[in-house]
């Protein structure tokens, strides 16, 4: 095979089913002569077994090594990230309605209790009585006229902040929650890349020795 350049870019993440064989074409985007791509793409990099648990990190070096073993003369240019995270998707635990309802109720009651504690903590009742006095000049121990709109406003404020509670967004930008979830996932990914990777290398090395 002649030394035409092949461009290879590892995908960021790959979802596979248990016992699937992972080939290069799953792991990476490849650009180059069709014939070469076809051949390289079929190279098997990893076979998912039960020992893999649910995350496997494939390093770019492993892919390069596999390609070189088969076709030493190919010029490979790599672009982008150096690892692919393989997530093995075992049979999804079917989310049962009961479970969901329990979590929902937990959040509901927890939020209710938290806001009551908060009100007690900051003496909200006294503050509201004071506001009632400032505005009207009269004393009122139970200023419901202030407190009921206040309670509804609480919900409104959360909707505004999260931007998309009721499907219809105020604008197209991602909400802080979306960004937060993304950041969290990013951190997790980085963690597994750093930590699972070395362990994984050791494991495959052991296998080769035996």
């Amino acid at each position, binding site marked *: 095979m002649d030394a035409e350049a092949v461009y290879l870019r590892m995908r960021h993440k790959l979802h596979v089913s248990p016992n699937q064989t992972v080939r290069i074409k799953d792991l990476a985007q490849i650009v180059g002569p069709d014939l070469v791509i076809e051949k390289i793409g079929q190279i098997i990099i990893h076979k998912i077994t039960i020992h893999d648990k649910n995350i496997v990190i494939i390093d770019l070096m492993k892919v390069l090594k596999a390609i070189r073993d088969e076709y030493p003369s190919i010029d490979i240019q790599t672009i982008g990230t150096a690892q692919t995270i393989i997530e093995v998707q075992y049979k999804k*635990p079917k989310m049962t309605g009961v479970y969901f309802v329990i979590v929902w109720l937990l959040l*509901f009651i927890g939020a209710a209790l938290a806001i009551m504690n908060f009100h007690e903590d900051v003496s909200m*009742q006294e503050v509201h009585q004071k506001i009632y006095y400032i505005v*009207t000049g009269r004393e009122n121990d139970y200023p419901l006229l202030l407190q009921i*709109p206040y309670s509804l406003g609480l919900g409104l*404020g959360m909707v505004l*902040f999260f931007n998309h509670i009721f499907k219809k967004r105020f604008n197209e930008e991602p909400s802080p929650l979306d960004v937060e979830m993304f950041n969290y996932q990013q951190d997790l990914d980085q963690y597994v890349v750093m930590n699972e990777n070395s362990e994984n290398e050791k494991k495959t090395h052991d296998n080769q020795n035996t």
Partner: protein
Amino acid sequence: MTIKILSVMLIGLGGGLAVGAGFVAVLTVFGILPRLMQISKTHARIRSYEISIILGVLFSSWYGLRDMTITSSPWLLVPIGLASGTFIGMLAAALTEVLNVLPILMKRVGFKEQVLILLMAILFGKVFGSLFHWIFFVHL
């Protein structure tokens, strides 16, 4: 006498400085203002918003601490209540945000698609808890 007055003034000024700076710092950390500007697309008006916050703080501390009253209709309380509730609601939402509760919770319970419904649980919980507090709890 003069020294006493001066030292009390100094202490008051110092306390006010610390609390005011802390208040602004908290608002900044929670990022409510950027959020409101993002929604309303009024980034250019940031100076007016700053003035609005300062005036609000000055007004409430002046009237609140001196037991003064503007003697007007109780119905004025409705918009005030709504606005203060919205502000506290945003504060609460921002707080859960800062603490990173939701992403971890979603990951743990594994209902990524149902985030909205779970968020609604928190939202309704807050509204319900608040109403319950004012209507029943304070009478206990």
